[in-house]
């Protein structure tokens, strides 16, 4: 039986190429579209997910993490008084303009954080260090955006909202969904770049003591500061992702792209495998006439489907990983984590078997008398 499934598949090389091309195209399409969606989710909230912050305290009405408004910095003392809070630091996160040496301007997001605690600071660096931010007018940018910001070497200067900024280090892997790069600096400089008085900050970021329950501490802070909004790190990430996903055309487009990728992929696979099975319909009729039970024919068709899925997946995953690697050089991040790659294999097998089920019905409902037609 394996012989028939394998031989049917490999006998007609042209048909095999067409089948595999269909499966590969579908899987690459799904992988890239879904990877774009995952990249979207990652980049839209990575400043939150990589911050190391447990709770975010801000003014009410925050739409997403990049859209905070100023609040009194002294609130940190009220927050510190709440049991379970280990650290509470003022934090600045706001859009600003970066002036390139050419005079052109680029949008950036200034991140001002407390250098002593490091809370909300960069998670990965490839040049310089957080301590370098203790110098005057110093900033860190992500190495990915050096060209975009016109930075060719450390020590080079630009301007943020008209104030001098000297690049003293590079962060790594912090792509921005809004395409406005994150620029890390000290809290003091962050306030200066954003023209905020030292008594104002956008967030109070909180690190909890070991064993403290985030929801309980969050409720206690709300009681302590009624005119504030408090989010756990997970809630802030979800709020930001949901905002960009559902309130902007970009998010809906990415979501629709992933859904359409899945749909088109399934249709392509279904059509390809259906055609491959129908090509052998007379042979299945002969098998039935010879006395083969329907389950024998199911097995032949399903084996062909699983083989097609496995071979198509092997090529598709290689192509998708290449696309993922290439995407790292661009602004649109495509992610293909291992669980998704494995899930894609399961999906490939299920899609191929699912598509075959349609053709199985065709094959098993054949009138075996077809064999008597010349």
């Amino acid at each position: 039986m394996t012989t028939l499934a394998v031989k049917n598949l490999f006998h007609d090389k042209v048909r095999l190429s067409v089948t595999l091309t269909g499966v590969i195209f579908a899987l690459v399409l799904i992988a890239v579209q879904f990877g774009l969606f995952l990249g979207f989710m990652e980049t839209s909230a990575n400043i939150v997910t990589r911050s190391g912050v447990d709770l975010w305290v801000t003014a009410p009405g925050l739409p997403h993490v990049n859209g905070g408004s100023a609040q009194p910095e002294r609130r940190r003392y009220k927050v510190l008084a709440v049991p379970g809070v280990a650290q509470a630091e003022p934090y600045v996160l706001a859009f600003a303009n970066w002036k390139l040496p050419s005079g052109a301007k680029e949008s950036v997001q200034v991140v001002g954080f407390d250098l002593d605690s490091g809370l909300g600071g960069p998670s990965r660096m490839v040049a310089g260090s957080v301590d370098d931010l203790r110098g005057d007018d110093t900033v860190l940018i992500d190495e990915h955006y050096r060209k975009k910001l016109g930075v060719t070497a450390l020590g080079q200067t630009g301007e943020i909202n008209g104030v001098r900024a000297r690049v003293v280090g590079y962060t790594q892997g912090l792509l921005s969904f809004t395409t406005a790069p994150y620029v890390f600096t000290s809290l003091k400089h962050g306030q200066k770049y954003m023209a905020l008085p030292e008594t104002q900050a956008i967030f109070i970021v909180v690190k909890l003591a070991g064993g403290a329950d985030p929801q309980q501490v969050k409720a206690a802070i709300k009681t302590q500061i009624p005119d504030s909004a408090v989010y756990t790190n997970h809630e802030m990430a979800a709020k930001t992702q949901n905002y960009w996903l559902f309130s902007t055309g970009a998010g809906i487009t990415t979501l629709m792209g992933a859904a359409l990728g899945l749909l088109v992929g399934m249709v392509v696979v279904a059509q390809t495998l259906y055609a491959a099975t129908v090509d052998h319909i007379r042979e299945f009729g002969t098998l039935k006439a010879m006395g083969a039970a329907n389950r024998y024919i199911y097995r032949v068709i399903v084996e062909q489907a699983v083989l097609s899925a496995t071979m198509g997946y092997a090529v598709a995953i290689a192509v998708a990983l290449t696309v993922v690697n290439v995407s790292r050089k661009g602004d649109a991040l495509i992610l293909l984590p291992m669980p998704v790659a494995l899930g894609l294999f399961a999906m490939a097998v299920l899609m191929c078997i699912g598509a075959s089920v349609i053709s199985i019905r065709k094959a098993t409902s054949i009138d075996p008398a077809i064999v008597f037609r010349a």
Partner: protein
Amino acid sequence: MRTVIQIRDLEKRYGTGAGQVRALEGVSLDVQAGEVLVLMGPSGSGKTTLLSIMGCILQASSGSVQVQGVETVGLRESRLPGIRLEHFGFIFQGFNLFPALTARENVEIALQLKKFSNRDARRAADKLLADVGLADKRDRYPADLSGGQKQRVAIARALAGDPHIILADEPTAALDSASGKTVVEILSSLARERGRAVVIVTHDPRVVPYADRVVHIADGRIVAEPVAELVH
């Protein structure tokens, strides 16, 4: 002679109401072990339908068809493949070989359906191919065989598992006269030497000299059944 197929008052209708077509009507016929029975008639007369019903490929609308004593009319659809597998070998006008399989594998697959182990299937397939004079062609694909050779592979496949009844639909139609003669001689020897019942549907008058009986069908009815006429 032992009756292997007994048909009584067989009817086969297609469609319903005003559009209903009677393909077979009032057909009664016995097929004996060891005989070559030839069904002849014009196109559309119902002879292939009759062959299909004999072989449990089609279900009769009414009447009785007994295969080796088992009534097949009204039998559940799911039981028919088992009867086909146990009692019948089929030979088709278009050969119906699997193009992706070699001659040997084409025979093996029929044996595997009958639960032969891989080793036994291989041994039996080689013997069957040798019996039809194709021992040296066993590794060839159908595309590399002549029409006569393909039909001999089909005969070897039909004989896989030693069925009691061989049903052949126009087995010589696609063959030249020499190949056709070889094929009919093999079928005839199956009846004479191995006691198989061989039923052949054909238009080909060259087959008639090998027949024990010729049954003529027209408009779905048996119009004449000459007295058994042993040619040999």
